[in-house]
């Protein structure tokens, strides 16, 4: 259990934050990562190296030779020489992130084989590098009920919903992680960027750092930029994957401010800036409305560092869903707040009792079970839990009485609605069969049929209202 630091350029060896890990300094580690194997390090948990002085493929190979999966070993890259205390904080964060790693299979290792120029051949093979690619847990996926949120969000069209299950092409996938934060059920996951890894890393930063500090999300391509003063780096596959919840969560974990580096400024080729900018604006609006100011979420690391607003434990933030994070922030700020949003994964569903026939289709297609049908012998209720709603609007699309505005979705962060818990939106009686006593249909649905058929089919109406389909 070791944090390994390359000690070139006078880099000091920091103290561990806790006694549960060792810190080992090695000269020349960047240039010769196999020094790790030669020194007999058996369980490297995180590495601190120098900008532009190492080849990630060699580093991953050296880690792999110890029997450890390199996808779970964070590599922190230093630019300017940081102080011993900054190094301690960086190391503590990296170790915490490693310890929250739940493992990765071979299917998660996406090959990136650089081709390099050489004297021997114009084009030669470099050292293979691997990035963590997402996978889809079919047991959690709601594709069978029509959910296509990941497919619609994928910038490389690598997800295919044909056949009722989501299949995925690792060859075309950029592993940006947008599908991960878009998935309403947690079926899609990137093993190297699980929410718990991120919250544990940030918690370790704030625990170690005595001064107000910021968290700077950067994409994996921006690793080469190193560390900036007072801003501690958290690597994600692409900053375009950051949801509102991910952008705001560091503030609850003790960070004073959050920054996310856009693709264009980091030199990243994924070009998901528009997505980040939308969510950055929404997160800023929430921070401002809750009374925490408009400079908590920034696209740059300029400006002074305000005092932190909270210090929740990492476990309190769960998966960093937008609604969870917003509600946790609201308990620390203004209580009675409603913030409309176009990009937040939240929604408040309401039902028009005059036009809803309680057909249950909305509950059937809801990917998160925010809408649910509860049946008894002679009644049926449609219930709703705002905390679970991700605002996907599949319920609205599925509603057969959409023209009558039977169901509406209002995308807003709403403290009152989120705190309400599961409640009944509509309740109605169910007609029962006079012969067998079984359920026929909700009375509201039979009324609707009657209004459509009028008096022309009185006999039919009388029959379908009295007998179930088996007894007619």
């Amino acid at each position, binding site marked *: 259990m070791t944090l390994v630091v390359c000690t070139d350029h006078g880099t000091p060896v920091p103290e561990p934050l806790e006694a549960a890990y060792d810190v080992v300094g090695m000269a020349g580690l960047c240039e010769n990562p196999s020094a790790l194997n030669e020194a007999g390090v058996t369980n490297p948990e995180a590495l601190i190296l120098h900008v532009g002085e190492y080849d990630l493929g060699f580093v991953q190979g050296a880690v792999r030779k110890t*029997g450890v999966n390199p996808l779970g070993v964070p590599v922190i890259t230093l630019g300017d020489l940081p102080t011993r205390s900054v190094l301690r904080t960086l190391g503590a964060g990296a170790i915490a992130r490693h310890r929250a790693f739940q493992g990765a299979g071979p299917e998660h290792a996406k090959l990136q084989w650089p081709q390099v120029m050489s004297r021997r051949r114009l084009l030669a093979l470099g050292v293979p590098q691997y990035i963590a690619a997402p996978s889809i847990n079919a047991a959690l996926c709601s594709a069978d009920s029509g959910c296509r949120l990941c497919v619609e969000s994928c910038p490389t069209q690598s997800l295919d919903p044909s056949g009722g299950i989501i299949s995925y092409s690792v060859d075309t996938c950029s592993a940006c992680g947008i599908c991960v934060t878009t998935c309403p059920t947690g079926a899609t996951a990137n093993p190297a960027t699980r929410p718990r890894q991120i919250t544990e890393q940030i918690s370790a930063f704030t625990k170690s750092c005595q001064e107000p500090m910021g968290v700077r999300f950067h994409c994996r391509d921006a690793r080469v930029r190193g560390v900036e003063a007072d801003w501690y780096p958290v690597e994600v596959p692409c900053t375009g994957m950051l949801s509102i919840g991910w952008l705001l969560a560091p503030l609850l974990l003790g960070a004073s401010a959050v920054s996310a580096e856009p693709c264009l400024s980091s030199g990243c080729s994924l070009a998901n800036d528009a997505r980040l900018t939308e969510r950055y604006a929404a997160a800023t609006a929430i921070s401002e409305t809750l009374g925490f100011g408009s400079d908590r979420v920034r696209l740059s690391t300029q400006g002074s560092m305000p005092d932190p607003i909270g210090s929740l434990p990492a476990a309190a933030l769960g998966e960093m869903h937008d609604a969870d994070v917003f509600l946790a922030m609201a308990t620390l700020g203004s209580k009675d707040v409603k913030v409309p949003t176009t990009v937040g994964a939240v929604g408040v569903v309401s039902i028009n009792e005059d036009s809803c026939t309680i057909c249950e289709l909305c509950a059937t297609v809801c990917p998160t079970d925010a809408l649910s049908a509860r049946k008894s012998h002679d009644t049926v209720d449609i219930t709703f839990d705002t905390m679970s709603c991700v605002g996907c609007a599949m319920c609205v699309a599925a509603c057969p009485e959409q023209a009558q505005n039977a169901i509406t979705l209002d995308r807003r962060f709403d403290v009152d609605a989120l705190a309400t818990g599961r409640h009944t939106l509509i309740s109605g009686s169910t007609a029962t069969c006079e012969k067998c006593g079984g359920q026929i249909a909700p009375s509201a649905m039979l009324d609707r049929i009657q209004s459509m058929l009028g008096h022309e089919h009185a006999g039919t109406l009388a029959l379908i209202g009295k007998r179930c389909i088996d007894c007619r």
Partner: protein
Amino acid sequence: MNKLPETFEELSRFRQGMYRIFSAAFLPPTPERLGDMIAGADALEAMGLPYLAFYNEWLPWRQALNSIHDAIEVEVEYVRMFTTGVAGAASPPTESFYTADPIRGEVGEVLAKLTAKYNTFRLEPTRTVTDTVDHISIELEVMSALCAYEAEAREDEDQRRVHVMLDNEQGFLEEHLLVWLPTFVDRIAAADSLALFKHLGPAVLSFVRHDLGVVNFLSTSSPIVESVQ
């Protein structure tokens, strides 16, 4: 430190060796063959195997290979696992077992298709081979031969042949090996076998899956630039 494949040709030779050793791993484990496999594993590791992602799955099998102390026990277990006996093998190592319905006569169809496929590759099993052409060892050996052809084409700087070989490799992996290998490996895992066989399944599956990614990478690499020396 290990020497990595520096050129596409060396990479093809390395892949040829990987398929070869896994092919041998599914043949009867005679002491001589086990010795050859250990030597082969040493050579492959020296060719940069730890730089490839499937090394994490390779390592447990490699350790099991090195720590065999009872060759008879291994041979007996091999028969139970892979050789059809009175009750059938615990995990039959043939494609047709997983993809064909014997009652509908589909086994012969699978074998005929494979034989035809090997003919298009200008390959045929040697007369001493008694296994059917859909045996895992033969399919892995076919991949090894295709990699060897690819390496020769690269040596001759014949880019057209290189691409034909890459297409053949990609097609054979997608249409044959990877169709049934995952189920076969699941069956090995369920059979609660010796470490040598228990770890062989994940090692070969992760290698073959990885290799499909390598083939896809090689297919999209620029042949014109590579040919300029």
